[in-house]
């Protein structure tokens, strides 16, 4: 972990300085679909937060609102202490699907954010190489997306989000479509990168196991319209590795989180249970 990242991490743990605060954020789509019904949420700088909830509860919508890709129809989103919104390239977004440009190679896809920022290919080259190495795709720089497996495409998408060295990384079920083995491996890779790079991560999933393994904090959401049903701080120590999945503490947390999720899904969930 770099010194700066370390400082950021300990500061965030000590004071929990929010990077971003959502206050009463609601979203009603056209035709009256209420996706979110008033979400209050602080995102701490340097933290790893997971949004956990059933399909269709508005997780993707919330993530898009955090990124500024969708405007909330109620409430507001504020950057820490009235600080300026992140500049371009300071937010990395990984969509639920790989969302690659089929006409560009792996390299070309990862170059995109830097290209849009006006960097020449030569200037960008070292950072592209670095991002490719970070996701373990060495040797595939010249491949086209169609020549890659689903998991590799997802990794390209992650590398593209990393290449601008973002402060805030938003990941929308990035591993949902992958097999268990690849998924576990990418989970660990992601944690390793998070620890070394000092990002703030907001991760969306509907897997209890994945959320416990990865997160400092889990935000359990109710079915549509999505609200925060519970927030849990997972106190398992980092670095977390495969062995953790065998421990009793991990199992206990998975049980707790499952119960909270089940409670949130119950028809009469109040949606205000504290974590």
């Amino acid at each position, binding site marked *: 972990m770099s010194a700066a990242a370390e400082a950021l991490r300990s500061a965030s743990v000590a004071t929990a300085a929010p990077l971003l605060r959502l206050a009463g954020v609601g979203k009603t789509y056209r035709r009256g679909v209420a996706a979110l019904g008033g979400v209050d949420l602080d995102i701490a700088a340097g933290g790893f937060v997971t949004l956990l909830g059933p399909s269709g509860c508005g997780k993707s919508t919330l993530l*898009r609102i955090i*990124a*500024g*890709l969708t405007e909330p129809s109620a409430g507001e989103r504020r950057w820490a202490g009235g600080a300026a919104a992140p500049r*371009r*390239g300071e*937010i990395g*977004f990984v*969509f639920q*699907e790989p*969302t690659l*440009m*089929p*006409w*560009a190679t792996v390299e070309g896809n990862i170059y*995109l*954010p830097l*290209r*849009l*920022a006006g960097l020449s290919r030569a200037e960008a080259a070292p950072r592209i190489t670095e991002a490719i190495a970070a996701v373990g795709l060495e040797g595939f720089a010249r491949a*086209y*997306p*169609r020549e890659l497996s689903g998991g590799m495409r997802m990794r390209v998408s992650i590398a593209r989000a990393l290449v*601008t060295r973002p402060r805030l990384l938003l990941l929308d079920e990035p591993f949902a479509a992958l097999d268990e083995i690849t998924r576990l491996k990418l989970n660990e890779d992601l944690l390793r990168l998070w620890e070394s790079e000092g990002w703030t991560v907001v991760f969306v999933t509907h897997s209890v196991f994945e959320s416990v393994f990865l997160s400092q904090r889990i935000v359990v959401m109710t079915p549509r319209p999505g609200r925060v049903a519970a927030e849990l701080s997972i106190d398992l120590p980092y670095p977390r590795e495969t062995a953790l999945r065998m421990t009793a503490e991990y199992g206990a947390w998975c049980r707790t989180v499952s119960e909270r999720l089940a409670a949130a899904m119950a028809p009469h969930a109040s949606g205000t249970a504290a974590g």
Partner: protein
Amino acid sequence: MNGAARRIARILAPVLVGILVLAAWEAVVRIEGIPRYILPGPILVAETLWTEGPSLLGSLLVTLRITAAALAAAAILGGAIAILFARSRLLELSLFPYAVILQVTPIISIAPLIIIYVQNTFLALLLCAWIVSFFPIVSNTTLGLNSADRNLLALFRLYGASRWQVLRHLRLPTALPYFLAGLRISGGLSLIGVVVAEFTASTGGTETGLASRLIEASYRLEIPRLFAALVLLSLTGIAIYWALSLLSWLLLRRWHESALPETE
């Protein structure tokens, strides 16, 4: 059938059918003793093609030049109009109906007017061919420019891309296969446009296109020559289609589904 056999069959089968049809045609002409000014046999047509070849080739070049110019104009202007349409919805709404009107009005009915108003024959023919060939490019390319992946658009927005960057790096590459599909249709259409316009103009002299030669031959009842010109026209159409397919394949072969083998 395995791969190699299928490939051979794909070439051999149509060739065999062609040979059979030609043989039957020749046989009917000979057995029935049909006079050459009504229906020449394929051998006579081939002979005519050989002897008249050089003079017909000159006319073919004239036709080809206009066709190529019209197609280039359709590609450039059609592409530009599509970009304007994709940029401004208002512009598209106000102009698209007129593009449709131009498209559905039979060229044969506008051609005489164009030939009267436009003095320069080359330009008049060019305009006729352009009118019939620009529409597929405009409508296809507009569709392509508007088909950019919504999430990729969001990503470009997230990175603060300018409209020009979105066009250059997202909309244009997305539209390329659509544009090329339009171009392939337009290639055939612009040849038809030139032929129709030549029919209408029916200019005399040496600098005339293949269609004028065809009409001239029909007036003089030189049916073998008519057939020879017809064969050349068909071959030209095939060659244009083939060349545009090749271009499309070259540009898309590395990434687009249409240019990839079904199994690898």
